[in-house]
């Protein structure tokens, strides 16, 4: 091949690339709708963007919107969007109510909140509308109890009226890990402490399930003081509870949630579908309150627990 032909071919290839780039550049391909501009939401958005950028998705094709702005996105932009990401419950609700031409994936959305979105919007879980749950799978929560507190056999949970239907799946997850579940329903916040006292009477550990009726910034003082007096450790769902005085927390960080969402965004951009089943968080963290552990005469290492739990999950 002569040198002239080589230059010609190279020029052709370059012009094809440029044409492709020109076709994509002005369009938003990934639309991220964030419920709030709080630090955790922004952490998730940043992780998502960083991950996409590292895999060659140009920053200019990723746009962050407020939920209120979704309705006013121009038709032209709508057509270029290949995938929607909702960060937070409110964003998921807005996307659920919008007529989207591309699949939408929720992140930073707890299971109960996503179920609420599905009920309110008439959507069904599908490759068009899916979620990476914020809360940890029950099997992982129970496995952590087994690992961290091998002498504990009775797991207490307090469930609000809306969460009571999870009783059966909690029981199954507990018994799969050789644990017995003691679930108590809390009908209203006035009844919380009677319920707490009764559940603590025959529980070795209290497993917190997010429910603002039960666990909120006002009730937490009494819950923690009561559980520690009863010598019953509290396993929580966020590191803030560990700072407040819970023994352990199992949770995914917003960064982890953003990164996992990015993985599925890349799949969609590569022309594949989102799964039809909801996605459990694949990465997680564990925090331990050392002072509380000392009071309960326990020795726990958060990193060792995390590695052991991961290893256990990798085993078939």
């Amino acid at each position: 091949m002569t040198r002239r032909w080589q230059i010609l071919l190279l020029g052709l290839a370059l012009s094809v690339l440029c044409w492709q780039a020109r076709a994509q550049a002005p369009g938003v391909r990934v639309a991220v709708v964030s419920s709030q501009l709080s630090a955790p939401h922004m952490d998730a958005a940043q992780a998502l963007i960083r991950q996409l950028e590292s895999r060659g998705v140009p920053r200019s094709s990723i746009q962050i919107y407020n939920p209120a702005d979704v309705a006013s996105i121009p038709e032209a932009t709508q057509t270029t969007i290949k995938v929607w990401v909702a960060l937070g419950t409110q964003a998921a609700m807005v996307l659920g109510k919008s007529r989207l031409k591309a699949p939408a994936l929720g992140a930073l959305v707890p299971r109960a909140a996503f179920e609420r979105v599905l009920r309110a919007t008439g959507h069904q879980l599908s490759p068009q509308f899916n979620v990476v749950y914020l809360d940890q799978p029950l099997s992982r929560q129970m496995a952590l109890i087994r690992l961290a507190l091998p002498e504990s056999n009775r797991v207490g949970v307090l469930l609000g009226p809306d969460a009571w239907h999870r009783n059966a799946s909690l029981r199954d997850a507990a018994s799969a890990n050789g644990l017995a579940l003691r679930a108590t329903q809390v009908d209203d916040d006035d009844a919380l402490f009677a319920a707490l006292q009764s559940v603590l009477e025959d529980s070795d550990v209290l497993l917190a399930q997010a429910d603002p009726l039960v666990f909120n910034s006002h009730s937490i003082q009494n819950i923690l003081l009561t559980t520690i007096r009863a010598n019953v450790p509290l396993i929580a769902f966020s590191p803030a509870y560990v700072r407040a005085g819970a023994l352990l927390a199992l949770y995914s960080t917003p960064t982890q949630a953003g990164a996992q969402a990015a993985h599925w965004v890349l799949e969609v951009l590569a022309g594949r579908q989102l799964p039809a089943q909801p996605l459990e968080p694949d990465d997680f963290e564990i925090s331990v309150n050392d002072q509380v552990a000392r009071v309960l005469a326990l020795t726990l290492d958060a990193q060792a627990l995390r590695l052991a739990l991961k290893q256990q999950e990798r085993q078939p």
Partner: protein
Amino acid sequence: MKKINTALPRQLFSLLGLAGLLHTTAGWAQGNVAVSENDFLDEMPIVLSVSRLPQRLDETPGAVTLLDRDMIRRSGARDVPDLLRLVPGFQTSMSFEADAPQASYHGVFGHYSGRIQVLVDGRSVYSTYVAGSVAPGLMSVALEDIERIEVLRGSNSVAYGARAMLGVVNIVTRHTAATLGASARVNQGENGIQDTRLGLGWRLQNSSMRLGVDQQGDDGLTGANGHNRVRRVNFRSDWRTLGDTDVQLRAGWMDIDAGRGIAELHEPLRDTSYDSSFVQVDWNKVLSPEQDLALMFAHNQESYRDISPFPLIPGLNFDFSGTARNDSLTAQHTLRLSPAVRMVWGAELRRESVTSLPVYNTSEALVTDFTRLFAHAEWRLRPDLLLNAGAMAEHSSASGASLAPRLMLNWHVAPGQTLRAGMARSFRPPSEFETSGDVRYAANGKVFEIFYLARGNVAPEKVLTRELGYYGSFSWLNSNLDVRLFDEVMSGLIQVKNYDAQVDGESFTDIRDYVNGDSLTLRGLELQWAGRPWPGAQLGFNHSYTKLFFPNPPTKETLASTMPESASSLFFSQQFSNGWTFSMSHQNSNPFRLQRTGNYKQYISRTDWRLSKTLLVGRNAGEIALTVQNQGPAQADFYKSFAFERRAYVSLRLDN
């Protein structure tokens, strides 16, 4: 019942013209009842900060007896002193002759029990008026309001203040968030037992409150001038202002009406009345997980009425009536200096004032100011070695400066097995009456007798405590064992000494004064087994063996038998799955001298039992119970001629 919960307080407050305060009675979680990511991502207030973390029982610097709510309920006791019978080393009396039932640790050595500290939610409740007696304070809380009682056996002035000379009874009341709604209880039974209580808990925005009103009455000991009645009102509110600050307000009133006396010339039959009220404000701020700041202000006032005519001299009254008040301000800073060192330090300013013309021969208020500084550090030398060291310095405007240091080492020899060793020096300053009491019996301007004329030559009494302890927990039995071996050297006990003197040109004999008298050593062993060995069961066994030694012969022979050489108690309770609970306790001791029995010694053998059945009234739980106190023969109490006879009573309780 449930509806009362919010409706009644609304009515109550509008009646009081405070309706404006009631912006809403909706729950705390109002407006945000559905789960969202915020439940996972929001910050939480720090709860178990350095000062709120409880201590493990194997790391407490000393022997501790815990009486929890279950045990309190199942014991069948109607008041705190009766509960303390089941704590090793305690002596109790049901008599009201010393104003209220008494409880003492390692002996009373006088008329009033004042060598232990009694705290109710951190507030020292000894009586300024009644010579530092803890008896009225022990009666100031209804048992339903109590979450738990922690009894620290052994000197602990460093952590609990100057009165904690021999031990501490730390009463912790229930949090208001745990007592929302209405509750009621009635006891009715033999010996005129008639107790009633109503409790009401409600919420106001981010605070919760409780009001408890109760009265407890019976005909007293057989042979005594019966009819005792205690009436109480206690209010507590917990406010959460910001995430890291909480404010608590407590206020209360109590009245003890007692029939007293033994129909003797100097102790005529009469009715006395003791009245007290208090306000307490606590402000706690979590500065960080490693630092807390707490401020407490408490005001207490007492008024006492005990007046009776002397039949032989018209116009002559025995009068011990008067009033007292005390105010206390405490600041406390708790901090963790490193993962291995935590410390608490602070100061207390306290003013006590007593006014009684008949008791102090002046209508002026007698004021004593106390300044206390304390610091206490807990240092984990090694994972298995914990050192507690601290000191409290006190200056009293009446008796000068004193220092109470303390050192205790806990060594975890093996998992669940701990040895303790330590020593402490502690003191009790004389009460106002012990320094300036001036009781003269006079009529028509003529003084017939000077009963007391204290000359103020009295210094704080002291104790040097050395102890060895063992704490073992046996998880296979769900039980623990605590053993305390002690050597308590008490010196310069504040005692009555009679003297003769010329007063205002007349000579009087047998005038009572307070001086630092006998010294003695208490040596012994206390053993405490507590556990829940099988489902529904609670089992406790205590035994104490104590011997008194006097370096010099005691001024009063009776001092040597102030407490029994050997005493035991057993508590057992079994809850059945059908809602029935049976519990029983037995207490016995070697003979010892009761408070006013001279040389007569009495042994104790008392068995109580209780059978209860839980009830469900609508959505509320309740209980009906039959309690029999002292199933066996009558026991002498306080005086030889006073007897505690069998008392059976039925109680009906509805919980909130």
